[in-house]
């Protein structure tokens, strides 16, 4: 069974530029999560989708971050414009299927550096 796929793996941009990250969850998983992990800390949830609807985006900085999950499968997370403090690893996770909704499986992450 293929795991959670993310691209790109690494991205370096200048502040005020825009960037987009892509995630493809495990096949059959209805729930998809985006996390931000700043160096030395645990992941923090940015947004949670159930199929193509948003369940929780309370910690998403909506003035600069946006996310969508068209057709309830792939998802894209965008930052526009980026700030220095957005430098972090962005993790995508999915859940559902045989293991149930409580167990999340993570992708390899996208490491973003904002200069």
């Amino acid at each position, binding site marked *: 069974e293929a795991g959670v796929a993310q691209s790109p793996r690494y991205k370096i941009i200048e502040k005020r530029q825009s960037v987009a990250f892509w995630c493809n969850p495990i096949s059959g998983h209805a*729930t998809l*999560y985006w996390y931000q992990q700043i160096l*030395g*800390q*645990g*992941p*923090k*949830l940015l947004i*949670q989708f*159930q199929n193509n609807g948003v*369940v*929780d985006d309370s910690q998403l900085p909506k003035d600069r971050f946006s996310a969508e999950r068209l057709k309830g499968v792939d998802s894209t997370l965008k930052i526009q414009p980026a700030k220095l403090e957005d430098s972090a690893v962005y*993790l995508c*996770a999915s*859940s559902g299927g045989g293991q149930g*909704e*409580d*167990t*999340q*499986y*993570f*992708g*390899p*992450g996208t490491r973003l550096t904002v200069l």
Partner: protein
Amino acid sequence: AQTVTQSQPEMSVQEAETVTLSCTYDTSESDYYLFWYKQPPSRQMILVIRQEAYKQQNATENRFSVNFQKAAKSFSLKISDSQLGDAAMYFCAYCGGSNYKLTFGKGTLLTVNP
């Protein structure tokens, strides 16, 4: 709001020995799940072990086991016969509520010495 506390920023263990990583959490919910995830350097987060709060029996996965004390809100991870490949950052995570949101601790960096 739920909080997860890992009081040991770093731990070290000799190869083949046993080490225990600590985790405490705060919640008012009675039904929830607890997890330990492993994150090797520059590699992805891997699920180590999962515990359902309504089960009194402690979860075990090969060399990994937990000591779940629900009343004390404690959830420690024991790694037996430590191997070099166990070196990683270990995160304790709480999952509860209707949307199964994960709350992570700050992590414990485990070093395995040969």
